[in-house]
């Protein structure tokens, strides 16, 4: 196993490239594996998209590691951050879903999964899961729902949200294009599925240009009442 030595200093900034003096190496249980996740909720659909690059430091571990995981027929979760915690967290969620299904004889709704995930994440408040989660799915009425989380379980329902390494670049763009924010005199057209998918593709292509941890391929999961459709689009591989 590769020991991850801290590239980032205690104040969050990257340490100097040239050796300046004695360096203390501490074992960090976390590692940052990159990746960006995006979710958009429409009138009767939800889209969860993620890139498929798995990186660590200057290396790429895999070009085909999607970050969207199907939970139920109406819910998909996107997890980015530390891949180890992403895997464990999705295993725990799957187990809890199964337990719920067996005791209550029905699948968990998107809202219930979100509430459950919040308590799972807060259970590790003092040694958090280093995962940025976004849940996309349909609520009980069949409308699109997106729930976004922080690593310790704070969550709320949104219309759209970007998470992961390129989130700071994508979120303002989504605010403008989907939320029609910061524009004057524009018609607020409701988002239909084709336009939403095209927007997601365009937005990820832009993210791959400017963020080193995003690229390789884009996996889009479209959730409708018919089920979950998956689509893969190639992105920059450099």
């Amino acid at each position, binding site marked *: 196993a590769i020991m991850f030595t801290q590239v980032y200093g205690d104040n*969050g900034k990257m340490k100097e490239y040239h050796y300046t003096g004695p360096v203390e190496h501490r074992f960090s249980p976390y590692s*940052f594996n990159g990746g960006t996740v995006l979710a958009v909720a429409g009138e009767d659909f939800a889209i969860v998209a993620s890139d498929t690059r798995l990186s660590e430091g200057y290396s790429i571990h895999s070009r085909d590691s999607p970050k969207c995981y199907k939970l139920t027929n109406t819910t998909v979760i996107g997890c980015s951050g530390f891949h180890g915690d992403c895997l464990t967290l999705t295993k725990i969620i799957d187990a809890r879903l199964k337990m719920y299904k067996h005791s209550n004889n029905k699948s968990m709704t998107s809202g219930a999964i979100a509430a459950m995930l919040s308590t799972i994440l807060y259970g590790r408040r003092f040694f958090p899961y280093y995962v*940025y989660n976004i849940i996309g799915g349909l609520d009980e009425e069949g409308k699109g729902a997106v729930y976004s989380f*922080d690593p*310790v*379980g*704070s969550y709320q329902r949104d219309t759209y949200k970007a998470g992961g390494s390129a989130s700071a670049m994508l979120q303002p763009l989504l605010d403008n294009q989907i939320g029609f924010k910061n524009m004057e005199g524009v018609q607020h057209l409701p988002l239909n599925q084709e336009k939403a998918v095209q927007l997601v593709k365009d937005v990820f292509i832009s993210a791959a240009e400017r963020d080193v941890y995003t690229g390789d391929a884009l996996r889009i999961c479209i959730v409708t009442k018919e089920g979950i459709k998956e689509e893969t689009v190639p992105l920059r591989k450099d």
Partner: protein
Amino acid sequence: MALQDLCGFKDSFLNSRWNLPASHPVEYLSESPIQFVIAAADTRSSCNGLVACPASQKILPVHSHLVGTTSGTSADCALWKRILSRELRLYQLRHGRRLSTAGAAKLLAHMLHPFKGTELCVAATLCGWDGGEQENISKMGNETDDLAKTSESDSISQAEARGRNPCPSPAMSRQHCSAGGKQLVRSGPSLYYVCSDGTRLQGALFSVGSGSPYAYSVLDGGVRWGLTVEEAISLAREAVYRATHRDAYSGNCVDVYHITSHGWTRRDREELREEYYREKERERGKVKERREKQEGVEDGQSSGRKK
């Protein structure tokens, strides 16, 4: 200084809890004939310089007559409020009455105590209306002291009204008095500040968060005995507006909650950007007026000299 510095919240690269270094003034006037509590808060949640959410809810209702404002780490506040709601509901079911705000504050403080010294960061104010499930008559307007007292004693529970001297001042009538060894329940508006470092304070006015100094200055300038509900609400709104203007970690919109004996009511969320433009318009209008008046005076003078 952001709230996270005050709490000693350490920023590691694992930084991305949503913080709510909010600014929310909370006030209640106990001496005024109007009995109410106003809570106002901004809606920005930030995370190390990034606005994680421009439309978060910092005022969370706990039950029909208790509302809590939250500041600190978003997840901590959301979860502890939820735990508090659960405990208060259990208390209500077991004892047949709602727990007072003071009791809720004590409960929250005791629940947070085991986590003192950890990185938990919660700074909440609990605003509520205690006791008195009977109807309360709230008198409007600046009426005399006598009427103020009577409207108060209406809201006080029966035990107090029974065998006591009419109190000379509203403050005294709301203390814990024991008449014949029976414990009396304080009733009326109540405001408590609870913090994860163990602080628990009662007060009439609180402002919490990174923008609180700015909010305090506006509130201290405007708060006085006998404020009406509308005046208080506009003062709270103004305080949040000024704080969002000056503090980087506060911004976006303002939420205002109004708590009376009938429970809490919520005003629509208001974008403060509009308020800023409205103010600029007003100022522009005033400058224009002043300039016109100045020109008018000069014209008058010059025409005078001609004569």
